[in-house]
């Protein structure tokens, strides 16, 4: 018995520590002529967030190819150096150090997860190297950062602080929401922050949160949570979670509210895979997003077509934001006059104003956060469509 119990204890220890996945290093992008401007791309190709990394890589590469084909930055080509942060904070720090010290990149895009960014961004901040966050939507990425000054960090991804209140406001205006239930994935910092944003936005809009229901990433079944929510007879459910749990919430709402109940979701809901998984329940969703794939704006339509031609599938928001960040970076490099002068590049990035991108007119706020339109979307016939 003793050996068995110690075996169990050992397993639990292994499980708790080994959930980071296997770090692996992506071969660096080709190094062409000497004058190449290296740009680091630190993304999650393995680990928990490996859903997003490949999309981001495709988006950034497409932008690089287009920029290089159009003459690069004053004749110099951009060369992406792709590194896998393995969805792990320590690995993120390691690859940031490598990109800065060994590859001597001019700027870095990434990393994929907010939690990894919180570890890796300070490395670049200390080195005085511009970083554009391409998918971090949590709080504390730019502006006021937990680790102190973060004036070298920019963000091209629409934060939850902007997206969630916009979605809730739109829902309230149209549906006259008074009483809601808030569900959130409490063991994910990102989702828990989203819940706080929802709470504040609900208070601002005069909406009562009748009950708050935390759940965990590892929860198997969501019927009990939704049954619990049903007991409050809410006008809608607010839900903050990652994609894996988002579809489960929607599926359960679909089963238990046959007449339909709106779910105002966080960024985790903003995924075509969630629509497919939720099936008939997907149209309940309302979500504030950074991008409308179907937007007929020419910059967007051209991007969607080019992406499809190159990869054979539609881009998702992660690809689009990575693409946009690369475009924004190249634009700033051109305006800076000298791409290797980091201070000049930072200043040029700060001057980004109403640049035409697939996300719409793109600017940076004084806090280095993205300023762009918010698209509040719902689902119809298996596609995201504007809510209004």
């Amino acid at each position, binding site marked *: 018995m003793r*050996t068995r119990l110690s075996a169990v204890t050992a397993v639990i220890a292994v499980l708790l520590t080994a959930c980071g996945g296997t770090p692996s290093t992506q071969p660096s992008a080709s190094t062409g002529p000497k004058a190449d401007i290296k740009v680091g791309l630190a993304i999650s190709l393995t680990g928990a967030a490996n859903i997003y990394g490949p999309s981001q890589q495709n988006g950034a590469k497409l932008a690089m190819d287009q920029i290089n084909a159009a003459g690069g930055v004053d004749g110099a080509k951009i060369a992406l150096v792709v590194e896998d942060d393995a969805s792990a904070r320590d690995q993120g720090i390691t690859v940031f150090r490598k990109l800065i010290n060994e590859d001597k990149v001019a700027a870095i895009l990434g990393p994929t997860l907010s939690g990894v960014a919180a570890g890796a961004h300070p490395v670049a901040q200390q080195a005085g190297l511009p970083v554009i966050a391409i998918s971090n939507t949590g709080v504390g990425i730019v502006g006021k950062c937990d680790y102190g000054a973060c004036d070298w960090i920019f963000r091209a991804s629409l934060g939850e602080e902007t997206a969630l209140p916009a979605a809730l406001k739109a829902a309230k205006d149209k549906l006259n929401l008074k009483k809601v239930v808030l569900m959130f994935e409490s063991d994910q910092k990102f989702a828990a922050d989203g819940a706080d944003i929802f709470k504040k936005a609900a208070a601002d809009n005069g909406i009562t949160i009748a009950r708050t229901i935390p759940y965990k990433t*590892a929860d198997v079944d969501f019927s009990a949570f939704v049954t619990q929510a049903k007991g409050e007879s809410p006008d809608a459910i607010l839900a903050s979670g990652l994609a894996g749990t988002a579809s489960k919430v929607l599926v359960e709402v679909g089963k238990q509210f046959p007449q339909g109940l709106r779910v105002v979701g966080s960024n985790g809901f903003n995924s075509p895979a969630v629509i497919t998984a939720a099936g008939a329940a997907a149209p309940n969703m309302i979500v504030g997003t950074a991008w409308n794939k179907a937007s007929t704006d020419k910059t967007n339509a051209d991007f969607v077509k080019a992406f499809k031609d190159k990869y054979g599938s539609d881009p998702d928001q992660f690809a689009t934001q990575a693409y946009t960040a690369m475009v924004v970076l190249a634009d700033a490099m051109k305006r800076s006059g000298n791409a290797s002068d980091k201070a000049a590049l930072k200043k040029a990035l700060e001057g980004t104003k109403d640049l035409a991108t697939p996300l719409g007119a793109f600017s940076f706020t004084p806090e280095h956060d993205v300023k762009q339109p918010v698209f509040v979307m719902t689902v119809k016939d298996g596609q995201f469509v504007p809510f209004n």
Partner: protein
Amino acid sequence: MAEQLYNAIFVGSIYALFAVGFALVFSVLDILNLAHPVVFMLGAFVALFFMSTFGLPAALAAVAAFAVTGMFGIFLDRVAFAPLRRRGAPPLSAMISSLGFAIVVIRLMELRYGPDLVSYPAGSLPQTVLQIGDARLDGLRLLIIGLAIVLMVGLTYVVRATQLGRDIRALAENPRAARLLGVDVDRAIAATFFISSGLGGVAGALLGFAYNAIYPQMGTPYELKAFTVMVVGGMGSLPGAVLGAYILGIGEIAALVFLPAELAELRDALAFGLLFLVLVIRPRGLLGHRVADRA
């Protein structure tokens, strides 16, 4: 309340199907098979494969999932456990070996299917809702609960009342003695892995059906829960695993229903607090016997 009880029984049934397979291998061979969550995931994908490639109905796809993951279990044993067993490696090595095997398979599945959520073909899953009074019960879940119970009863029958079951129990008692008594030990080991993995695979397919969203890492979160279930029920006891599974399922949902909203965060703390208590107070679990001891 009736709805919540129904929900709890459903969760308990999935935990139970997952945990009995886990407990079976442990009770017979004294190893923790850390590749069990992979088998669970494979079951969901095998069902998907048969449904989307051959247009099999969900029920037959679940049977296929049982058979294929069962065979996979035998393969798993040959690759990850048998070589270690031959050289008498300690159980810890077997555990690590199965963990490594699990990671490799998950990566392969991610290469094939991508890491994102995958869904079953549209319209391939039954969608009936039973309306009983105010409660709306999902028909598919009722089927799943029923099937889980049938499978567990079947397993008990096989272990207790068949020649194969006697061989497995003899093996659990003492492999050397079993071999001397003429038990085909290799066959009994293969059967153990077949049954264990088949049940895990079916559980994966059924949970996949219930949520229509499967992904290569879907089994991972169940591992800690399965440990809890096994420790609470009694290491290696099959009825213990089932009992532990329903206790955990009902306990989790009772915590959700009865805890005041401000304390809702403590739900998991209760579940794992239970694990802790059992380890400290009653280390052999509620029904702590091995299969062999109940002969």
